[in-house]
């Protein structure tokens, strides 16, 4: 603790990222002189419409789609809501929904609501201990009245990247639509949605150094989605409301930069994540959650369980020491429920409570990794020294070498 004190390491890029200066620069004129409404017929309106069209084309190209297949929204949460509810109103007779058990809260809560209201029966697919969806469970879940299959592409907590080709082909074979929440993968891994057997996909800007409050829904041509709130006929009549012009401009710019720099930056980010993961795994009594760092995991995502201590307390200590992360502990969630992702991959509640997620971005460097390692080590030691959780007394699964825990505790 010396020269790297008094600085902040932001390692919560899975929650949101810092906007890049180039993106900000692109947005600024649309927050001042270019204030026309794209629906207006005068020159200001036409200019705004042209700017949006150009952004739509850029974004479409970035994901391998056609401009007409892109609907701008307020973010991935809205895109998920639009995809699911839009199909529900389009196909009111299809009363069966299939989702993975590790979806983002937006999809998960729509499923809960439909099931509670008696609108649809919901089937949750099986995932293995690394979070990969079992293709056989998908094959056997699909029914004649299945409205949609929704599987998150890159999981926000444990970083698992699903094989959409394999899952999508099963859906195609059975004639069922597939939606995927790509909020975490877009800009981090190569994505050509047009070539994937995926019918709808959700995106957002602020996880890839773009602005908050803007996202998109990709709807494959010929797939019909009905708007679920009313207004003027913006966005092909699917998403009424005046477009978020500055947001859309920033989104397209952020996408362009992310793709331009992807090879170089994501390789570097994954190397940092690899070193962080290796360093953290040297701490005693830890567990690594999700697939190994590498091609099947979101670049920069590291999720670790520190046994016998609780995640919110770890997070708060790290916060005070300038390392910003998130946790899957029940105590850090406002609903007091442990992460449904961690419990779905088979973690005991107590192990979910001790989990910490570090998510790195292109704006992080080796110093951040070193600070995170140092501060985490100190914090884990400090909290274990005072924990009431005595492995043999309270744990269902005791580490093979729990004795070393006491040694550690009495250091």
């Amino acid at each position, binding site marked *: 603790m010396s020269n790297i004190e008094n600085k902040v390491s932001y390692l919560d890029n899975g929650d949101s990222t810092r906007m890049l200066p180039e993106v900000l620069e692109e947005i600024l004129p649309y927050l001042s002189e270019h204030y026309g409404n794209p629906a207006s017929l005068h020159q200001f309106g036409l200019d705004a419409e042209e700017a949006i069209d150009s952004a739509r084309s850029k974004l479409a190209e970035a994901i391998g789609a056609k401009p007409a297949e892109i609907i701008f929204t307020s973010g991935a949460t809205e895109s998920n809501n639009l995809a699911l509810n839009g199909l529900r109103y389009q196909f009111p007779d299809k009363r069966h929904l299939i989702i993975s058990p590790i979806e983002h809260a937006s999809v998960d809560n729509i499923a809960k609501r439909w099931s509670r209201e008696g609108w649809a029966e919901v089937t949750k697919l099986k995932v293995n201990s690394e979070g990969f969806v079992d293709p056989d469970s998908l094959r056997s879940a699909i029914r004649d009245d299945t409205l949609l299959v929704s599987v998150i592409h890159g999981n926000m907590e444990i970083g698992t990247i699903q094989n959409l080709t394999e899952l999508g082909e099963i859906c195609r074979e059975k004639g069922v639509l597939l939606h995927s929440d790509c909020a975490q993968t877009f800009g981090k891994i190569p994505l050509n949605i047009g070539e994937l057997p995926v019918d709808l996909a959700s995106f957002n800007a602020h996880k890839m150094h773009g602005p908050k409050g803007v996202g998109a829904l990709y709807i494959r041509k010929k797939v019909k989605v009905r708007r679920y709130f009313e207004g003027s006929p913006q966005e092909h009549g699917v998403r009424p409301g005046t477009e978020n012009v500055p947001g859309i401009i920033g989104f397209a710019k952020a996408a362009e930069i992310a793709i331009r720099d992807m090879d170089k930056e994501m390789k570097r980010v994954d190397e940092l994540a690899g070193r962080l993961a290796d360093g953290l795994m040297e701490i005693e009594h830890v567990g690594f959650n999700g697939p190994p760092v590498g091609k099947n995991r979101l670049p920069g995502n590291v999720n670790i369980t520190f046994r016998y201590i609780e995640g919110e*307390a770890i997070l708060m200590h790290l916060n005070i020491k300038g390392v910003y992360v998130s946790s899957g502990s029940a*105590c850090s969630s406002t*609903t*007091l429920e442990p992460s449904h992702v961690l419990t779905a991959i088979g973690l005991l509640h107590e192990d979910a409570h001790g989990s910490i997620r570090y998510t790195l971005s292109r704006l992080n460097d080796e110093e951040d990794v070193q600070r995170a390692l140092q501060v985490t080590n100190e914090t884990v030691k400090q909290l274990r020294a005072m924990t*009431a959780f005595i492995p043999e007394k309270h744990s269902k699964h005791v580490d093979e070498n729990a004795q070393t825990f006491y040694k550690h505790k009495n250091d």
Partner: protein
Amino acid sequence: MAIKYTPKVIQEFTNPENVGEIENANASSTEGSPACGDMITYNMIINPDTKIIEDIKFRSYGCASNIATASVATKIAKGKHIDEVMGLTPKAVTESLDGLPAVKIHCSVLAINGLKSAIRKWNEKYSDMEKSDEFKLDEETIVRALRNVINPETGVSIVKMNMVRMIEIETGKVYVELMMGDTDEMFFNNIEEETREHLEDLPGVLNVIIKLTEGKSYSFE
């Protein structure tokens, strides 16, 4: 939605007092469990003649407010007569922390209950008064247990919020109906689990059946 703590909670969490164990403790308790994500262990020395808590230390497994409430509880209890401690409510803890977020009020209940549980056990061991076999499973004991179940949305006990609408007891089987009123659905699981846990802890309870009912607004007791 972030959980916001007062500066006092942060202060107490980062510099907790009375941490550790007491070798020759004559009273102790552990409340909570790892599965819930919060647990406090107390060790005390109670003077058998004066019944004053002469020393107290704690260990904590839990969030920032769990650690802070336990630390404050030890400071409050130290030097006090056990009867005085038995009369404490969770408010004593929350007030000295300048308040807790509603979803964290249950931590103060755990911190105070742990103190009382250690004293109760000590009483059983050291004096002939208060024998635990006098426990009777009836509506009153169930309501008493349910007072410890906090609605995380309001930070108020479900009993106080008049959410407990029916209690039936039939040889080890307890049936409870909870009226959820305006409570946000996202808290339903937590309230149901907490209710189950507190009832299953009661001696003589073999089976707990909980029914959550919808209903209009709840009225405070």
